[in-house]
């Protein structure tokens, strides 16, 4: 399954000048107990886990549990308190579809402006062989033998 990176305009941190960049942001379906949604999500090899906004869990009817372990830590040392819930995730590209059950994490963003979806190793990347082609701006994902369940 091949996904072209998405283009964005950002401001260069050093100069403040506008710059076009590419990010591996792909469409993923999230199925809760009462509804499903289709979201653009960042594939992030630096993230241990798959993390979605809590507002999505509330909207899709995902039952959430608190964890008993330590908070997650983001770049810069920011502690992040996460919730846990079971969903099905799905990818589709042309005629190929995969869908699997997995446990993911949810974060209650204080400011909705900061909401984002992160597809990290647990729940997502662990189930694929991934190639990030920087020259083409293309992410290739091939399901591996650990993909839990495909409907």
């Amino acid at each position: 399954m091949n996904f072209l990176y998405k283009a964005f305009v950002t401001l260069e941190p050093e100069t403040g000048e506008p710059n076009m960049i590419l990010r591996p942001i792909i469409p993923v379906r999230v199925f809760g107990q009462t509804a499903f949604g289709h979201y653009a999500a960042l594939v992030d090899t630096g993230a241990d886990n798959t993390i979605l906004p809590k507002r999505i869990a509330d909207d899709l009817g995902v039952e959430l549990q608190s964890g008993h372990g330590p908070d997650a830590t983001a770049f810069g040392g920011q502690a992040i308190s996460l919730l846990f819930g079971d969903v099905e995730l799905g990818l589709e590209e042309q005629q190929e579809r995969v869908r699997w059950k997995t446990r993911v994490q949810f974060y209650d963003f204080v400011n909705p402006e900061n909401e984002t979806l992160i597809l990290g190793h647990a729940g997502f990347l662990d189930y694929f062989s991934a190639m990030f082609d920087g020259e083409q701006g293309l992410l290739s994902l091939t399901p591996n033998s650990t993909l839990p369940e495909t409907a």
Partner: protein
Amino acid sequence: MTTRTDRLHDPRRPLAAPAEYAGQWVAWNQDRTEIIAHGSDVARVRAAAVAAGQPDALLEKVNRPDHIFVGHL
């Protein structure tokens, strides 16, 4: 060799949302050529897309141009 300009302007690449939607969620139509709903609440934007007959609309959070992603939430 593919140049940076070639990559950025590949016509198959998903369209960037207009800057006026920065900080909001947008719902793209099935062809991802048109924004059919937008707002700050992802649930309301999804509901608006469903009401518009597009339950599979792609929901995207549009980052502000000054939002440089380095892994913080």
